[in-house]
């Protein structure tokens, strides 16, 4: 078999190459030629094509994402910012926390179980790569309509994939979202967030420094996973047209990842790596070019040393393989023996595949022949940048002139019927059919998990320092107004964090959108990014990293713009956290904030086939005061619960059902109060003795605060409409088992 070496490429400058099949545009191909001063070898072409893809190069989003840097608020907490595998923040006491959210949307549609599983595996490796022990997972999910046939295939598969991988890994799942909307049919969203913790001094970076240092590939063997497109090279370049069989789906091996985690942590503890990078999208191409370009540039790789699961792989395919559960480390020669011994202890395959050189280029040889000779920066960072056309879609004006007409309950009979309908709807219904498939207890530090407002884990069992995380977005608001929608998502996340008693510290995000080639979608994207950057600056929160997922659309119909925002908060003493469930009878229930009559984007409107006209406007000043009130008032609260999806009606249902303690509620303008989802509302329960303190505090912070009821009894009674808890519970809990078995 003839290799397309650098020498061959130089000798045959005009050989035809299938760059279009690999997704490269003619001008992109031309600029590769210009960079190299010759045509690329097929291996080089493979590397550039995948590293310059939307997924790896962020070519459509980069011009927008740079606002996160330009508008970045000053933050003393930020230890590692955007650009590394995950951002790192200082949470005090010498601890650093790293967290990030990523998407695995399309693979999860093709094969729900494995797609979701490998999505979890990928984000966990990103966190591990920073030197951290993964301590929590969250999984914001979006699906097509709950009763659609394909949702019955996709949802159970995705849920058991998230659980199957995470449970086996021993990382607790402490939160997430399950949302249904018809636009996600064919485009389910699987976003996965992971949090990790380490000591400051243990932070690791993806850098290849030090001439003579060794490049070690360790973890699973390399198979033909995820190289579908690249197989074309094998058949085009070599004339034996028979394409080999390559897997269409990547299969995760959580056990391999679990031992890889333990192995890495032991290696980190012994301080044996100079730099480290996980192998994710674009596999070795990405890892070697990123490591080299972040270092001094020179690296030499002997590709034939890569341990293979499938011996028929061509060099191009080895470079591209996205086999899971692999890592690449830079190790000083004096440490290699120790490194290998730890790998052996954990039965992890490890192989020296090359070394760092004092050159400027990444050289890859295959059985002694030079097949790649590139400046690594040109592969990893100098990809094309597009300023794609942007145009405000016409639906915006249409929506804004739409009249919406949603009936609101007012009589006791109407109230009861409306509440029971709402809380049984798939978006509001109890999600324990999903969450009971996830281990929330493992590691023994889960202080809060679903269905609380945020997940919370203890970091230090002696000092009780902890972190809280919440992910949110109301994509219907983002649809009506992506700028406000992104802002509101961040504010909701912050409110969730503060409701449980933690102080918001840093932000990650996963921007799920349709095709960037659609100017309307690009407008949604640009607006959402602008909104997020603005709100982060206003709230003084740094964006530490994130992920962009484009092309979530079927034909010309894009998903609702879905900028999932994750906020991380810190709590000095997790024992003081506030839970959502009413803790006992006789507590006074207060409502902070006030609902207005705008039902746009609410679940109640959605149930009446309305989406509305204008999203609410983000009120940063008010939300900041509210967060401060929540943090200051925490010692007073017996329980607290943020009001979001499903409004007060859903929030009341959740707080009474948690501990099966009812409540008697009286509220004016009851229909709006129950069903509107106006941001900035929180339910608080306090002991009657503390009520004047709460009222005084609310006055200080200029937050409206009304007593709306008292806890107790075995019904939720709203303005005389008594709903027995048993009936409420049945409506709330039977939806998922009925739908999904």
């Amino acid at each position, binding site marked *: 078999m003839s290799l397309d070496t650098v020498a061959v490429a130089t000798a045959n400058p005009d050989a035809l190459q299938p760059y279009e099949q690999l997704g490269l545009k003619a001008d992109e191909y031309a600029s590769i030629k210009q960079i190299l001063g010759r045509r690329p070898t097929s291996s080089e072409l493979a590397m550039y094509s995948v590293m310059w893809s939307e997924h790896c190069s962020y070519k459509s989003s980069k011009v927008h994402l740079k606002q996160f840097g330009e508008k970045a608020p000053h933050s003393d907490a930020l230890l590692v910012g955007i650009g590394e595998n995950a951002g790192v923040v200082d949470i005090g006491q010498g601890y650093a926390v790293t967290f990030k959210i990523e998407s695995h949307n399309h693979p999860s549609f093709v094969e729900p179980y*494995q797609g979701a599983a490998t999505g979890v595996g990928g984000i966990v490796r990103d966190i591990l790569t920073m030197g951290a022990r993964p301590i929590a997972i969250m999984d914001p999910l979006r699906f097509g309509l709950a009763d659609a046939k394909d949702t019955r295939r996709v949802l159970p598969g995705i849920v058991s994939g998230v659980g199957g991988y995470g449970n086996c890994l021993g990382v607790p799942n402490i939160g997430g979202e399950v949302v249904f909307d018809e636009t996600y049919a064919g485009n389910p969203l699987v976003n996965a967030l992971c949090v990790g913790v380490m000591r400051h001094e243990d932070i690791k970076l993806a850098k290849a420094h030090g001439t003579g240092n060794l490049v070690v590939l360790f973890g699973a063997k390399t*198979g033909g996973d995820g190289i579908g497109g690249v197989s074309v090279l094998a058949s085009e370049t070599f004339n034996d047209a028979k394409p080999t*069989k390559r*897997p269409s789906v990547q*299969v995760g*091996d959580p*056990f391999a990842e679990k031992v890889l985690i333990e192995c890495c942590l032991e290696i980190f503890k012994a301080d044996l790596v100079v730099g480290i990078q996980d192998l994710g999208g674009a596999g070795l191409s990405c890892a070697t070019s990123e490591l080299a370009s972040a270092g001094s540039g020179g690296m030499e790789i002997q590709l034939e040393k890569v341990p293979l699961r499938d011996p028929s792989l061509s060099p191009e395919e080895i470079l591209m393989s996205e086999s*899971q559960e692999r890592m690449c480390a830079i190790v000083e020669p004096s440490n290699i023996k120790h490194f290998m011994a730890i790998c052996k202890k954990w039965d992890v395959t490890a192989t020296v595949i090359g070394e760092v050189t004092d050159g400027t280029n990444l050289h890859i040889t295959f059985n002694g022949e030079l097949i790649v000779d590139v400046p690594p920066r040109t592969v990893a960072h100098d990809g094309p940048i597009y300023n794609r056309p942007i145009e405000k879609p016409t639906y915006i004006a249409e929506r804004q002139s739409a009249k919406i007409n949603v009936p609101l309950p007012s009589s006791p009979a109407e109230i009861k019927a409306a509440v029971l309908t709402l809380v049984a709807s798939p978006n509001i219904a109890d999600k324990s059919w999903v969450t009971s498939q996830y281990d929330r207890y493992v590691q023994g530090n889960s202080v809060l998990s679903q269905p609380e407002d945020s997940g919370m884990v203890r970091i230090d069992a002696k000092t009780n320092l902890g972190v809280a995380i919440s992910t949110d977005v109301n994509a219907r608001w983002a649809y009506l107004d992506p700028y406000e929608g992104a802002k509101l998502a961040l504010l909701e996340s912050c409110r969730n964090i503060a409701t449980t008693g933690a102080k918001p510290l840093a932000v990650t995000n996963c921007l799920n959108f349709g095709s960037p080639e659609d100017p309307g979608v690009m407008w949604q994207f640009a607006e959402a990014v602008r909104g997020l950057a603005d709100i982060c600056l206003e709230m003084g929160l740094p964006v530490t990293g994130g992920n962009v997922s484009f092309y979530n659309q079927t034909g010309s119909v894009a998903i609702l713009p879905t900028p999932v925002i994750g906020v991380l908060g810190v709590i000095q003493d997790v024992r003081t956290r506030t839970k959502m469930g009413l803790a006992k009878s006789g507590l006074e229930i207060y409502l902070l904030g006030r609902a207005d009559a705008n039902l746009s984007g609410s679940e109640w409107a959605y149930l009446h086939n309305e989406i509305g006209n204008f999203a609410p406007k983000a009120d940063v000043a008010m939300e900041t005061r509210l967060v401060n009130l929540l943090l200051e008032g925490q010692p007073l609260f017996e329980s607290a619960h943020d009001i979001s999806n499903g409004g007060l009606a859903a929030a009341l249902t959740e707080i009474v059902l948690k501990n099966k303690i009812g409540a008697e509620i009286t509220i004016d303008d009851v229909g709006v109060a129950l069903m509107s989802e106006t941001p900035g509302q929180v339910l608080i329960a306090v002991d009657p003795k503390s009520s004047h303190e709460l009222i005084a505090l609310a006055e200080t912070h200029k937050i409206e605060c009304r007593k709306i009821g008292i806890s107790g009894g075995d019904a939720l009674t709203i303005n005389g409409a008594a709903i027995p808890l048993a009936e409420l519970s049945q409506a709330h809990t039977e939806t998922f088992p009925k739908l999904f078995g």
Partner: protein
Amino acid sequence: MATIVVEVMLKPEILDPQGQAVASALPRLGFTFAQSVRQGKRFEITVAGDPTPAQLAEVEKAAETLLSNPVIETFVVKVEK
């Protein structure tokens, strides 16, 4: 009464962590015969009387839609006794 057997295996190119776990456990227990191990599923379906061609066609269809995941698996249908 007869038994129709459906054997479902992962496609050869698909990673099989279960088979791998067995393959690496065997030598630890002193068994050296295996070059590789793949693990799959076996369904034994009891049907009344001798299976008719129409029934077998149905089983094929069930194997393709329910018993196996055609994205990652292959299957074989056999009649026993």
